[in-house]
């Protein structure tokens, strides 16, 4: 299944995460290749978000490892991982709600806009800040949000908020972008636009890992799909293969609320 030879950009080995007695992720392994759009799916409660949280450093793994470009990064700080190029988005609208649209993306430029403390005080950071602002506007432009730059986030419709969430992450210039349910709550038109954008982000050289419940979107978008069930690996393969796999159908039908709406 994996294109042989080349080293995966991201790899989970025997990843386990417990919450008390509950095993949310159970000895789970998968690897992601550079330039791929890699889907991670599974019924509600399968452990997808927890996997993201462990990979992105929000939770330490109970056991197992995460490797980023061959380097063991398990248990490192989220901010340190972002500096290495591993950035995630959040399920739902996790934004700086009280900020303007532009300020949200400006925070996303945190790593790019370096300056010393004194420089910030006396204003010699003006050049790097101007570059950061330009870059932020460029990112908004990419998502078609440039006209809304001055708006407070709370004025934005839900679909635009999801896009802004992705813009904030993209402003951090990731090598690997983890998207947690980017299409949730979007109408079909917005979903189509968003899918096109995800492809364009990949074409810029960003590897994408995608958790999503919109099966049509997942099947259309992903090069490869990993299916989780009860915290463990169920199946992995190309979309057509996964779609027709009896174990996958069984897992989705078996879960009480099916594939339609799980989170």
């Amino acid at each position, binding site marked *: 299944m994996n294109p042989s030879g080349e080293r995966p950009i991201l790899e989970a080995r025997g990843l386990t995460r417990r919450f008390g007695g509950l095993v949310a992720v159970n000895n789970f392994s998968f690897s992601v290749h550079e330039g791929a759009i890699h889907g991670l799916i599974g019924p509600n409660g399968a452990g997808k978000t927890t996997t993201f949280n462990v990979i992105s450093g929000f939770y330490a793994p109970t056991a197992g490892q995460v490797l980023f470009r061959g380097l063991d990064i398990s248990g490192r700080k989220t901010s*340190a991982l972002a500096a290495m190029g591993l950035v995630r988005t959040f399920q739902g609208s996790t934004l700086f709600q*009280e900020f303007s649209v532009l300020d949200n993306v400006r925070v996303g430029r945190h790593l790019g806009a370096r300056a010393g403390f004194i420089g*910030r005080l006396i204003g010699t*950071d003006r050049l790097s800040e101007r570059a950061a602002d330009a870059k932020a506007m460029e990112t908004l432009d990419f998502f078609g949000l440039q006209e809304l730059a001055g708006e407070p986030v709370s004025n934005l419709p839900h679909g635009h908020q999801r896009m802004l969430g992705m813009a904030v*992450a993209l402003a951090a210039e990731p090598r690997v972008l983890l998207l947690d349910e980017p299409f949730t709550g979007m109408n079909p038109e917005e979903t189509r636009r968003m899918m096109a954008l995800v492809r364009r982000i990949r074409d810029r050289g960003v590897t994408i890992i995608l958790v999503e419940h919109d099966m049509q979107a997942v099947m259309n978008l992903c090069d490869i799909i990993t299916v989780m069930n009860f915290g463990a690996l169920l199946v992995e393969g190309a979309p057509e293969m996964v779609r027709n796999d009896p174990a996958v159908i069984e897992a989705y039908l078996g879960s009480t609320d099916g594939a339609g709406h799980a989170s």
Partner: protein
Amino acid sequence: MSTAGPAGSIRRAVWRLRWVFLFAILAALPYMLSYSQQEIAVLLVINVLLVCSYRLLTLTGEWSLGHVVIMGVGAYASALLAKQFGIPVPLSMLLGGCMAAAIAALLSFPLFRMKGFYFLIGSFAAGEIIRLIWKRFTDPFGGPKGLKRIDPFPDIETGFLSIDFYEPVNYYFLSLVVVSVSLFILYRIERSRIGLTFHAIHWQDRLAESVGVDTFRYRTLAFVIASFFAGIAGGLYAHYVGAVNPTRFSVDQMVYVLVWAVVGGTTTFHGPILGVVVLTVINEIVLRALGLDTARPLIYGAILILSVLYLPHGLESLGPRLRTRWQLWRSGSAAGGRELA
């Protein structure tokens, strides 16, 4: 409303001159006050720095109960450096600020493992431990009685000029200069990307962290900067009053800082300044005139409750609210006038 035209340009010129007006008033103020009111004005200026430095910490969303103790760290450090090592007072004040910052940097390791309510309680505990150390160790901290006969700020004696800082008027101007410079630095920090990052951590620390903000480092930075300026306020206090003791920096005093901040509001830079100025004026002029100044804790409590109930966004929200009222009223009467014509 005309922003062009002569009225508009006058208004703009006045707006530009507001700093000149403000400093003129501040310069004239002590000469309109009695001696004891001048002493209060000195403490008020010091308290402005205390509450503004506190606000910087609250930008990251954490409210500490140890800020007054940190002020005390600056006060004790500056006093001891001057008393025991003969370090000149202006320098000892600066070092007192550095000591307060250093203690904050140390405390941030245990404290920033906590957030919200736990941070509040943790900062209270840390403050009590520091106060216990002051009480327990008579050498060098003077125990419960504290330090007395702290070196005053040295007089300036040159050919033409001789300034005795024992005079409240002169100490008022000294404090005014130190506090103005400090407020300017605090303002610049808030307006820079550092301030943006503090706010970002307050509103959504997980998102900030995920785009590379080391939230622990920035929380520590806010705590250290706030503590530095609280320490400077402590130094100004110690060398003015000439004595410090553990009770002066107890949690009762912290409650006043909280009341100033809450009543003034912490959304804007000037909110806490409004809070401390208005409450000090109420306390020192109105209550004293009525002979009610011993009921200060009670009255402060009542003011706090009233302001939370009727002015939840603080005194700072009063100006913009009145302005919109005024504009509504004006446009309303203008429309009425047109109808009549």
